[in-house]
């Protein structure tokens, strides 16, 4: 009955509504997917441009040492590996912590923990890793790097997990409990799915931050694409510096693109 009224009321643009969940489609929806498709193309073109540009230059020995496929691939691999470890740890810490801190009993600690996480992020990242490297001399270089970057990336995921869970309508949770779903079940099948969009936004931020800050690992000798940049600086070769920066930027944007894609795919229907 109401479908009939709806379609007679808006006969002009029936395609303008998404059948699935009532979001307008042809506006933001199409734009979003256009961006999803365009981003990798643009990033690919940037890489191609860089390759052609560097290839056209006459590289001296010092430049060649940084700008060759083997070296770049190994730094790229280090970078990805370090970032992945950091992100996995960030998720493993921040999501359970966020869930815990939104439970009624633990709520009173939320303020304190958030403040702590804020300090972690407000400290300049370069300062943080150098500080860690000095204070925890006995740890391995990689451990220090990972701990520092995890400290740095926890906040957005923690905060968004908490916000995401808090914005779930209390009456929905109460109805679920009132029908006999256990606390765990409510969390798993009601609260978390409804918090997913907000949580994913935080995770995406953390990914991008991590990929960016891992470039600083070079300053404590933990490798990564930051090595290329710092080679460029120390040897006074702008081309190397430029290439390293572009590579880090492209990597961060690629991760951001993947994050956006996942966000759209995992958003629950009907929300």
């Amino acid at each position, binding site marked *: 009955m*109401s479908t009939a009224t709806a379609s007679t009321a808006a006969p002009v643009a029936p395609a303008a509504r998404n059948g699935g969940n009532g979001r307008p489609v042809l506006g933001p929806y199409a734009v979003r997917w256009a961006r999803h498709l365009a981003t990798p193309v643009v990033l690919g073109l940037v890489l191609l441009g860089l390759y052609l540009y560097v290839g056209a230059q006459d590289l001296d020995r010092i430049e060649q040492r940084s700008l060759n496929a083997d070296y770049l691939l190994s730094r790229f691999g280090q970078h990805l590996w370090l970032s992945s470890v950091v992100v996995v740890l960030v998720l493993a810490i921040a999501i359970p912590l966020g869930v815990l801190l939104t439970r009624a009993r633990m709520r009173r600690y939320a303020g304190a923990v958030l403040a702590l996480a804020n300090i972690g992020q407000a400290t300049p990242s370069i300062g943080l890793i150098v500080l860690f490297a000095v204070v925890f001399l006995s740890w391995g270089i990689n451990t220090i790097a990972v701990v520092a970057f995890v400290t740095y990336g926890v906040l957005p995921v923690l905060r968004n997990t908490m916000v995401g869970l808090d914005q779930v309508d209390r009456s929905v949770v109460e109805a679920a409990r009132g029908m*006999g779903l256990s606390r765990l079940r409510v969390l798993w099948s009601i609260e978390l799915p409804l918090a997913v969009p907000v949580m994913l936004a935080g995770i995406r931020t953390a990914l991008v931050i991590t990929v960016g800050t891992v470039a600083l690992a070079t300053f404590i000798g933990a490798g990564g694409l930051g090595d290329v940049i710092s080679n460029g600086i120390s040897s006074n070769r702008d081309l190397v510096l430029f290439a390293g920066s572009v590579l880090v930027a492209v990597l961060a944007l690629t991760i951001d693109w993947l994050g956006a894609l996942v966000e759209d795919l995992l958003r629950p229907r*009907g*929300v």
Partner: protein
Amino acid sequence: MPESPPRPMIRLTGLTKHYPGQAEPAVDHLDLEVPEGEIVVFVGPSGCGKTTTMKLVNRLIEPTSGRIEIDGRDVTGVDPDRLRRGIGYAIQQTGLFPHRTVADNIATVPRLLGWGRERIAARVDELLAKVGLDPQTYRDRHPGRLSGGQQQRVGVARALAADPPVLLMDEPFGAIDPLTREALQEEFLRLQRDIRKTIVFVTHDIDEAVKMGDRIAIFGECGRVLQYDTPARILGEPAEGFVADFIGNGTNVRRLSLTRLCEVEVSDDRPVVVRGSGDGGCPTAPGSFALLVDRDRRPLGWAEPGQDRPLPLISHLGPEHTLHDALDAMLANNSDTVVVTDQDGRYRGTVEMATIQTHLHRVGGPGNEGGPVRGGERADRSIGTS
């Protein structure tokens, strides 16, 4: 037919809830019995502990002291999650899961109880039809694409899903427009006549309470029940000043809505003409009307002698309508008579303005409220027949 008095399905004894940090208890030594198969309405001003009392029953809130028994069993010994699966729960904000379809929402408790897939699907469709939603159309929608009234219907269907004997409903028809609300109330009462659940129904609205309740519990401050009685007796003899104030003016008119037309004596002194039978039964006195009916005695219109065409019948009322509806129809039609039919739509008689007046005087007068204080069948509403 003699009926044994209904046994209490829910029994609250000395129930007290004191929220930590609050000066006054939200519910204070409450004793209350909800008879099996009846709707008991909690009504009272905001913050008087209606919701708290209801949530104590399914242990969403744990009592400070007191006993809660359902079907003779103390609920404190039962695992709360299991307990709640046996108690339907519907709330004003509906609490529908926005990321799940209507069907999935309704299937929540049956799934918890481990029903088979086909049984659940059949139950979902049956319930959707029961609450007046076409299963085909609405089954796979998400709640965000339903109107407020439709959401509340789904909320009721979800509460009924596993066929629980007890239902808790906290302002289930709250935030919707008066017309839709009235329709939902009617439908729900019709449904309840079949399913005969024991229902605790919370509302702010005394009119809704009078309409829905077999009994009404009027809450005052701090979760104290000031009066617990049938709607007729609450309107007829409101206890204390507060209850009378809360009920407010217009009790006489409200009381009319307690009497169904099937319980009222109708007058049948109007001449009746069967269409196609000639003018034999037509009134001869000019200016008097006869009711024109078809061969099945369904009313068609008013016939006046000397006029070719009958005057159309603006409205006629069935057995489920109330004296309040009759008065309403009279005022709307600017007439002092309404035609009453039986459940098959056959002419039964007429109700006149004078009938209503007599009725009001009969029940309004002092000393006319016989019957036991705790008498409670729906028949108690029929003051007119006592």
